[in-house]
């Protein structure tokens, strides 16, 4: 029987105490234990970016993060950012520009874009392409996602 451990995690501002198998990854804890399903499992290998969340404010692959290492850190999924002004701009621009197709990459893409806009002022298309290059999308061909981030950047800087 796999050994269990009790972890205390700060998830989206709430203190959650949960018993999980030793060595459990954060993505599995979020999805199967806490039923927070906005981070998606696309590859479980840190390549596709669909599981991207914020840990202490920095985008991380939750599929590569050990849950036990995240105690005493702030874990934030898209769900915690819904009322944030910059996230709302991104949501509106993604919707308006047609940047959402199947949507499986969307929450990870938006976390990455949100963090990018926090640190980048008036980005060029090249900057945006570079920032999003760790988040795969198979539907849109990226152009409308890049347009959306550019639009949100312009509105944020106004």
């Amino acid at each position, binding site marked *: 029987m796999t050994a269990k451990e009790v972890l205390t995690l700060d998830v989206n501002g709430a203190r959650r105490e949960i018993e999980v198998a030793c060595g459990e990854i954060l993505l599995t804890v979020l999805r199967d234990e806490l039923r927070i399903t906005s981070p998606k*499992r696309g*590859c479980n290998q840190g390549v596709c970016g669909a599981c991207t969340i914020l840990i202490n404010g920095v985008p991380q692959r939750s599929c590569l993060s050990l849950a036990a290492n995240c105690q005493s850190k702030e874990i934030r999924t898209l769900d915690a950012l819904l009322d944030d002004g910059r996230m709302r701009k991104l949501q509106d621009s993604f919707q308006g520009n047609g940047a959402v197709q199947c949507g499986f990459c969307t929450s990870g893409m938006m976390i990455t874009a949100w963090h990018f806009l926090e640190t980048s002022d008036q980005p*060029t*298309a090249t900057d945006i392409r570079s920032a999003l290059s760790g988040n795969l999308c198979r539907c849109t061909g990226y152009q409308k996602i890049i*347009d959306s981030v550019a639009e949100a950047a312009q509105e944020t800087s106004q």
Partner: protein
Amino acid sequence: MTPGYKPEDTVRPDRQRAVAEEPGVNVVGASVAKLDSREKVVGRSEYIADMYRPNMVHAAFVGSPHAHARILGYDVSKALGAPGVVAVLTGDDVADGRMGAFIKDEHALAKGKVLYHGEPVAAVAAETEAQARDAARLIEVHYEELPAVLSPEQGLEPDAPILHENLQEYVKVFDAGSEGNLAARTVFSEGDADSAWDDCDVIVEGEFTTQPQAHVSMEPCGALAEVDATGRVTLWSANQSVFRVQANVCESLQLPMSKLRSLTPRVGAGFGNKMEPHIQPITVALALKCGRPVKMILSREEDFEVVRARHPFRIRMKTGARSDGTLVARECEVLLDCGAFADDSPGVLGYSLLMARGPYRIEHVKCSGKLVYTNKMRFGAFRGFGNPQVTFAGEQQIDQIAGKLGRDPFDLRRQNICREGDPWFLGQVVESNGLDACLDAVESACDWKNRDSWPDDTSRGLGIAITAHISGLLGTGAIVRVLEDGTVSLNTGATDIGQGSDTVLSQICAETLQIPIEQVVVSSPDTDGSPYNWGTTASRVTYTTGRAVSAASHKVVAQMMQYASEMLDCDKSDLELRFGGRIGIKGSNTDLTFGDISGRAHWAEGGPVVGSDTLVFDRNTHDPKRASALGLPFPRIGVMSFGALATEVEVDHVTGKTSVCRAWTAADVGRAINPQLVEVQLEGGFVQGMGFALCEEMVWDGPRLANPSLMDYKVPTSRDIPDHIESIIVEAPEPDGPFGAKGAGEICINPVAASIANAVYDATGFRHHHLPLTPERVLNGLLDRDQTGPVP
């Protein structure tokens, strides 16, 4: 860099959006935001992996370690004793039914034999996914290994091991001509290609090969099945058709279709991979065995190894023209690796041959092909359905002929293209045809005529290709119900896989009823309640399902008019439909709302209003007076969309790396019901095609897929796309399409590899016959050219 062009120009945040000012008024033709986009940007969409049912267990399978082996027996005792395990399933537990779209050759789970490395051979249900995966490894299967067939050429050898010993007895839905490892053969011919070569002044001939491509929808495949107290199964799964899921599960497990309800959560894209079965039959069999809800979600590696992939093609093509540029004859012979099961392969074979003539008037054409079973995963439907492969060959040969005749590639194409009313290969008359407009638009957008004035840059090249694609096929339906308050429920059974069909069909419904789109709600596909829909495939939903939605909506209008005439005590001819869901007397302010009319119908007189329509695409592909066709897998296929594409590439002469700098893609989609959604198809299809052209390749190391991961299988990222992708929508309305619309989903991917190969030739002087155009291949081409000089 091309003069006057900056990468930053491609970001168009201030671009005008064609959204209707008043919702519901002229909503067809407006770029309405996709109805599911809000839930997706707030992370609330529920995909199959996000579903949890009470008392649910998780499943995992174990794959075959052999490419070809007889199963001698199982020892499941260790797995059954492992922590958390509730059930183990082997081939002994599943019925002897076989499923398949064209040839019914596939069990729910390997039974008696395994036919490829990784094929699911047994499965486990356990309390957690980790326990299920651990226990799956404890299942012991005893095999007698058999020699394997690893290529179609090998499969056709006289002494080749046979995969399907009972192939002759399998049910087939067309004249397949199956024999030995030959799953199917198809031969089409028109005119007299054998003797037409004497009329040609220039002939080009070559052999081309294309590689297997993985779909890589971002959501891996999965399923969740539960059984009620009566033994009836409810099944949710990632799919492109709840009805094909129902048919496949019921055929393989030998269940009456009434005993299985198939549903769909949101689908994380499908490019053909989710049309026919993946692990739904195994999941259902496990749920029936253990009596608890069972969820099985594939890992990315499993998704690569056991679902399906684009067929590798070997193509021999020959094209001839007269000195005046008239195309006279074409011959095409293809050899397809089928993989272990036929799946959609016979369709891909037949369709690729139907499209191998290209969108040209060519009098003498002969196309033939063979589909051969091998001990690999099944190859099957993938966006384009065989068309990108033959277009890669055909459109390069058109450029080669242009080169030999000293003709401009645009002009040579324009001289030979099919026009409105021309027959397609085998005889079906093509009604709408916007190909000429696509060519003009792309030629002008890429500034083709002035390309000689570009700076002399030997690393840059510009290439073009054109294409056609069907939208259509098979049965579909729609039910439009007016609810008590006058709002409307639309139910079609068409799975929206993210491309936006729910939105487009709602636009068609709202426009016909003259109500705001917000007043239409779309039902999720459900085999219990939805009208039949063959599937979200073959670029067909907007065209075929749209026709049904339009017809059903018109029936609703007619019924509402009848009721209104009774309520207003006037003749129907005195009434008119008004914006906002009202029916009024012409020339008067008197009117009734849909709510008034529907309320009376529900509670007093007439009965609730339901409009429904079903249809099956019924125009014949083949005119026997014109052409001969042996082994035609689809007698009635669809209407034609058209497309043209120009790409500009830059080839690094040191590394051989090819980058696409700009692309101009035009498609005739009849009528863009939602222009923005058409643009996303054109852009997304282009980038997926770019992956096919430049970097994507599934590689087998003997019998084993060597790169089943996103680390080792490279799909394009945001850094790989061109700085500029220009989508151009051309509208040549299809007479019976809804508001003139026809398909957009696949036309965009067909010409990409051909266009890029023509651009690479323009840049390097080397003609490439093999995909993908990796840096190594392109560099070798450069080195060869330096030794021999350019080859036209």
